[in-house]
Structure formats: C-alpha cells, structure tokens
C-alpha cells in the first residue's frame, strides 16, 4: 500500500506530430497540496486532461487509490471524486448559488418539482464547511469574482470530490482574496481529506501553500514530487525553463519635471470615474495599479472614446484633443491599446496570423483604390513578428490554434507594427509562461527606451515594480496615490497597499 491517492506512471500521449507527454510521472499524496508547474506547452494541460478523462493516454497507467483506472469521460472522473476548477468560471450566472451547487442532483418534492428549501439547506451545508458567508439564494452574477471562485470550489466539494484540480485559481483575485483562498485550501486538506493539485504561474503562491512540486518540461518530468523545502525560486525557474531566469529591471532616468506628453485633467466619466488627474512623460512607463474593479481598464476605454467622458480635458503635447474612437486614437493621435482580454478584444481568433498582425496597418498600407494584398502586409509586419519570435508554422495559421504566449505576442506585434507614440498595455502577461513573460518585459522596457510612452495596467505586483517608472494607484474609480518607483519590492508594495487600504 502506498499513501498516494493518485498515481500516474510513465504516461505518454501523442498528438499528430507532437509528443505532448513523454514518460511523465505524477504522484499525488493524500492530504497534500501538490504544485504542477511548467511553461505553456510543457504538457500540464494534457496531463490534467488525462486525469480528468478528457483524453486517454497512449501509454502508461493511472491509479486511483491504488486501483488502476481509465476514465472515458469527464463525468466518470467526476464520479470517481476528481473535480477541476477552471480558470474560466463554470457557474451559471443567472442561477442562484444553491442551484449551481446542487445542479447535477437537484432535490425534488412529491410533485416532481424542485424543492428549493432543500436546495438552500443542502448547499448551505457546503458553504458552511467552507466558512463562506453567502446566502444560497444569491444570484451568482451578484457575487464578486473571488466569491464565484470559492463557490466553484464549494460545488466541487458538494460532489464529494477527494481530488481538486485548481487551474490558475488566483488569476483574477486580489491579494486579500488570495490569502483567504489559501487559508481555506489548507483547511480543506486538513479537515476534509481533500488532496489538491495546484497549477499556477505565480511561483510566490506555490511556495506559500504547496507541499510538493512536479515540474514538466517538453512533456517530460523536470522534477517529480520534489519537497518544496528543497527548492527555491531560482531552482524552480531553472527546472521550468531549463536555464536561469534573467531578472529585468528598468533602468532609466526620467525627468519628472519634463513637459507632459499626455495629460488627463479632472476627468469625470459616465462609468463613474471621479476627478481623475494623471500625466504621462515621453518615454515613461506609467503603472496603473489597483484591485480588480478599480476602474483602470475602464478609464483607458473612456480615453479611447468607447465610453463617454462627461467633463475634464485630455491634453496631448499641451493641446486639447477629443478622441472619438480607437480609430481616431490610432490614426490621428498615434495611440494604441493592447487589451487584457486577447481572446475577446485583442485578436480575431478565427482569422490567420497575417490578418491579425496587420489589422492596425491596413489603412496606412493601402494603395490606390484601397488595393492591398498579403505581400504588402507581410513585408510590413514580418520584422515585428520575427522580432517577437512568434512560433507559428506559417502566416496562414489560424490564431486560435496557437499557444497563449504566441497569441499574446501577436496582439503585441500588431501594435508595434502600427508605430504608435503612446501605448496603453493592459495586463500583458496574464496566463503567459515565464519565458514569454520575461521576454515581453524586456520588450516593454526596450520600447520605452526608444521613446514610446506607455501606460501599463497590471495586477501583478512584481511585474509592476520591475517595469514601471512611476506608479499610480487607483481604487473605486479614483486615483488614490502616486509613487515614484524605486524598484524595491518591499518598500513599493507596502506603499501601494497602504494607498489602497487607507
């Protein structure tokens, strides 16, 4: 008898042309929190899909409680006690919390109708176990993002799951919510006999709550069930990317007494921004920090003319401008926006690499009678796509078939090609592997050194502190603080957090 609840031995999974997993092992101890790490494309998601019955392995065996199993559908895995909590929410937003929790097994009364009292009572039981103060009758869409995440976990528990797979559970949570989540996870492991597989790109979190680590690289084990106490951040990164991590710091002397390039003066918006004042110098990276819902992305969208500005002025080189649309921003004022949501707003997933990378430059490239062919676009965007090292079989590849990191590179490349003076960059590295992440960081710094002025929105504190020259903190659609970044993590993070919690 081993004390593993889940054991995968020598798993190999082939896809046409690719070996996604090559003799990979994964062993999950009972009552432990086990980190599964790896770059995008290392085989993490394939492994998870094998555990949850979405794929079947070509070779290798899967043991659950020492019994060999093979799941032919996610449903079978779920019935065997394995639940996944995905990055994307799996709750029905217009249903109540109770209905969502009990969805697969809604209690019925004598007439065969749903018994809402029992729904509330049963679901309350699970919410209580998690010490969640949520009324089961609340409609899901009224909850905060953090609470939705917790409800997902409650739903998994209600299915009597003994193994929880959490895929990037903190990507949209504030530091405080993350703390609460971790406390809860520790308690679940201790009290409910649950074992947890934790997938995250944030290594700080791994060190905070995980007991053991398995790292995949190119489908193979870079390490297997290593005790977290034997590792440090550098070692872990080396395991993941196969080389040492380069620490990037922006080293620049910005003269903050310079003239403002872009100046927002007492902006009030339709969305609820109150008296926003901020300015951007030439070549500066101005960070906008805040929790989810602080109104940062919304502010940028108002500046781009997508939502209404009710009062206040926008000055560009000390001249008042009125931006009516993103088209206006791009063509008249050379301002671009890299969206945080690359799948919905950044890219046209069903179109190919060339038309995604070229979309911002079509207008400039068109010849007489609006003539434009692929070759003209290719000549313009190719240097940028090459510079960003986008990995794609060809320019005709459909973007949805590329990895997240490569997709993000394309949504950056199209703005590089457009040659804007000012770039708004919104959460550039969400869900991106370390290699691409540090690559994008270098790129952002390089851009600013070449004179592009950047407003950077990120919820990733280390990212903010390594990139920004100056950090503006926002809360509840207001600016609550401004600090010149000295790149010291401890000082800056405490200064920012005190701004937020004042």
């Amino acid at each position, binding site marked *: 008898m081993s004390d593993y609840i889940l054991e995968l031995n020598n798993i190999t999974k082939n896809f046409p042309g690719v070996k996604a997993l090559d003799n990979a092992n994964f062993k999950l101890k009972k009552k432990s929190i086990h980190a599964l790490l790896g770059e995008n494309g290392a085989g993490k998601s394939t492994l998870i899909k094998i555990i949850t019955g979405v794929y079947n392995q070509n070779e290798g065996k899967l043991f659950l409680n020492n019994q060999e199993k093979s799941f032919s559908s996610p449903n079978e895995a779920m019935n065997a006690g394995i639940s996944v909590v995905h990055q994307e929410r799996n709750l029905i937003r217009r249903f109540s919390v109770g209905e969502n929790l009990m969805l697969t097994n809604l209690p019925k009364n004598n007439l065969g109708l749903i018994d809402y009292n029992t729904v509330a009572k049963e679901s309350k039981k699970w919410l209580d176990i998690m010490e969640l103060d949520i009324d089961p009758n609340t409609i899901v869409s009224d909850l905060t993002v953090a609470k939705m995440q917790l409800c997902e976990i409650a739903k998994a528990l209600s299915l009597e799951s003994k193994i929880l797979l959490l895929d990037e559970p903190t990507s949209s949570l504030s530091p405080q919510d993350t703390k609460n989540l971790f406390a809860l996870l520790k308690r679940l492991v201790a009290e409910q006999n649950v074992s947890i597989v934790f997938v995250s790109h944030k290594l700080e979190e791994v060190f905070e709550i995980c007991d053991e680590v398995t790292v995949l690289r190119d489908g193979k084990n870079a390490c297997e069930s290593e005790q977290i106490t034997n590792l440090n951040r550098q070692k872990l990164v080396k395991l993941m990317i196969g080389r040492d991590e380069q620490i990037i710091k922006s080293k620049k002397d910005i003269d903050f007494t310079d003239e403002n390039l872009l100046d927002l003066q007492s902006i009030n918006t339709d969305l609820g921004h109150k008296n926003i004042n901020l300015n951007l110098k030439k070549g500066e990276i101005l960070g906008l920090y805040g929790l989810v819902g602080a109104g940062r992305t919304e502010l940028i969208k108002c500046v781009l003319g997508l939502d209404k500005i009710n009062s206040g002025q926008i000055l560009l080189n000390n001249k008042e401008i009125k931006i009516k649309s993103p088209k206006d921003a791009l063509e008249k004022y050379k301002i671009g926006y890299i969206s945080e949501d690359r799948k919905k707003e950044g890219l046209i997933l069903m179109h190919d690499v060339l038309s995604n990378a070229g979309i911002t430059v079509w*207008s400039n490239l068109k010849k007489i009678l609006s003539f434009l062919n692929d070759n003209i676009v290719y000549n313009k965007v190719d240097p940028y796509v090459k510079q960003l090292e986008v990995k794609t079989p060809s320019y005709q590849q459909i973007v949805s078939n590329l990895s997240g990191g490569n997709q993000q590179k394309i949504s950056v490349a199209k703005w590089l090609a457009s040659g804007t003076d000012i770039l708004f960059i919104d959460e550039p590295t969400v869900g991106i592997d370390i290699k691409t992440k540090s690559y994008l960081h270098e790129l952002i710094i390089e851009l600013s050194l070449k004179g592009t002025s950047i407003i950077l929105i990120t919820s990733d504190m280390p990212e903010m502190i390594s990139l920004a020259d100056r950090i503006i903190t926002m809360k509840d659609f207001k600016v609550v603080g401004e600090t010149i970044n000295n790149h010291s993590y401890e000082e800056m993070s405490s200064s920012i957090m005190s701004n937020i919690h004042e």
Partner: protein
Amino acid sequence: MNNKIPNFVKTNQFGLLILVIVFICIFSFSTDGFTSRFNIYALSRVVALDIMIGLAMMVVILTGGLNLSLGALGVSAAMFGGWCMESMGIPISITIILVLAFGSFLGWINGFVTVRTGVHSFIVTLATMSIYFGFMTLLTEAEAFRKLPEAFTNFGSLKLFNKYISPLLIISVLTCFVLYYIFKYTDIGRKLIAAGANPDAAELSGISVDRMFIYCHMLSGFLAALAGIMLTARIGAAIPSMAGHLGFDWLLPAFLAPVLGGTLLSGGKVTVFGTMLGAILVTLINNGLYLIDVGEFWVRFFLGIILLGAVLLDRAREYFTVKNSIVS
C-alpha cells in the same frame, strides 16, 4: 498530415462542385430535355438571379446579421427603375445608376437603424421589408410597368454562346469576381471581414465597426437592386409581385446559396465562389425536380430540407473548417 492532398480538395467548394456535377449527371440521365439548349438557357437566366441574391445576403451574413428585406428591397428598386424609364423617360444607363443608388440607400437605412439601435438586423429588416414593400405598393398602386424601352428588354432575352447562355449570368459571374477582389485585395474588404468576425477586437484595432456594418448593408442593397434590374430585364416588365408577396420568393435561395457555399452564419467569413456554387446547386435541384415533375410543394419541401441540412453543416463548420482561408 495529408500534405499530398491539394488544399482545394479539402474545401467546401470542392464538395459543392462534386455535388453540382453529380446532380447534373442524375438529371441528364433521368429527365428528358435537361441538357437541351432551351433548358440550359433557361437555367442560366435563373441561376444568374439566384447568384446575385445569394451574394446580397452573403454580405450581410458576413456581419453576423441577415437581411430579410432583400426581396422587398430588390423589387422596390426595380419598380423605381420601371417608373424612371416608363413614366419619366430617363435613359437606361442613368436609370440603372439611379436604381443602384436607390438600392444602396435602402440598404443604408437597414444598416443605419441596425447600428444605431443595436437591435439585431433580423428585427430591423423584418420591419423594413414590410415598410419598403408597403410603400412601393402604395406608390405604384400595385400596377406593373410593362412599356419598358426595347433595348432594355431585348438585353434580357439576348442569347450568347451559341444561344446557350444569358448575358445576365455573365453579369453575375463578373460580380463574383469583383466581390472576390474586394474581399481579398482591398483594405476595405479586409476591414469588413474583421469587423464581422470579432467586432470588439476590430473596434479596438482602430476599425470603425459601425461604418463597416453600414457598408455591408449598403452593398447588400446595391446587389439586391442589381438583382431587381436583372429580373425586370428577364421578364420584360417591372411587376410588384415578381418576387412574391413581400419579396418572400427570394429569401430561400438567398439563404441557401451562401450557407451551402460555406459562409458562416455567425459572421466573419465569406465565400464568394462558394455562394456561386451554392446558387447553382439550388437552381439545379429546383429545375431538375420540376423536370421530374414532382410538383411545386415537393420542390419547396426539398429546398427546406436542404436549408436545414446546410444550417447543420454550418454548425459543424464552425468547429472543423474554420481552418480554411477566410476569403474563398
């Protein structure tokens, strides 16, 4: 994988081409007169119109919307043309320009209302269908224009290529090439497709999505008006009921051609030549079934079944063949 198979074979158009050939074979052997000069000429006149109205629908489907007012709009434009020529004595060439401008204007109304209200074009064009047709009936008092210039009606009954082909078909095929060119080789065409595929991303990339959607509706109106002129030339008169009540007769082929052709109902993909092949297939089936003499109701029954099948195909296509090129 499968690198040895040329890409064209994997496309939807290739499947359609095979189907077209299969149906031609079936009808040639099973009916008398399918390959006769008379029948082929008649087919070419019908297919010309089906292609045009298929294209008119296609350019709105591109936006993820649809244009139910297509038939009413086309007939209204044609009646306007009849009035210009018969009552006002305006020369043919100028009339055609006026009619196309008028059609584009009606299309502009569709687009403008859709974009400004944010209501789905289904509702908007359902309303304008009734408005255009009602207005046209009111103004013309449901009377036809039958005394059109001879040069105009003669063109409609001209026979080319050893008397096999109507010049109308040549207009439609030329239109296909022009549209293909626009979508493949112009800045504006690319923007139309991008706006249709993902309006949010297109807007944030500096494309005026509203304007693009209005252009699509205008283009739809333009093509529907062109179809109206062609129909007028074909029957030698402008008749209010020539596309059925409210222009309904046009709707089935209008949907069938692009959907069979591989245009995605959710928008963002056009298949100009697919639509052409789709229209040919529809016309063939229509014509063949009449020749087999199965009766009017069965023809409608089959076309309905084909449309349902094509829509199922559309769903499947969203999963599998989005991988093909965007303009084809």
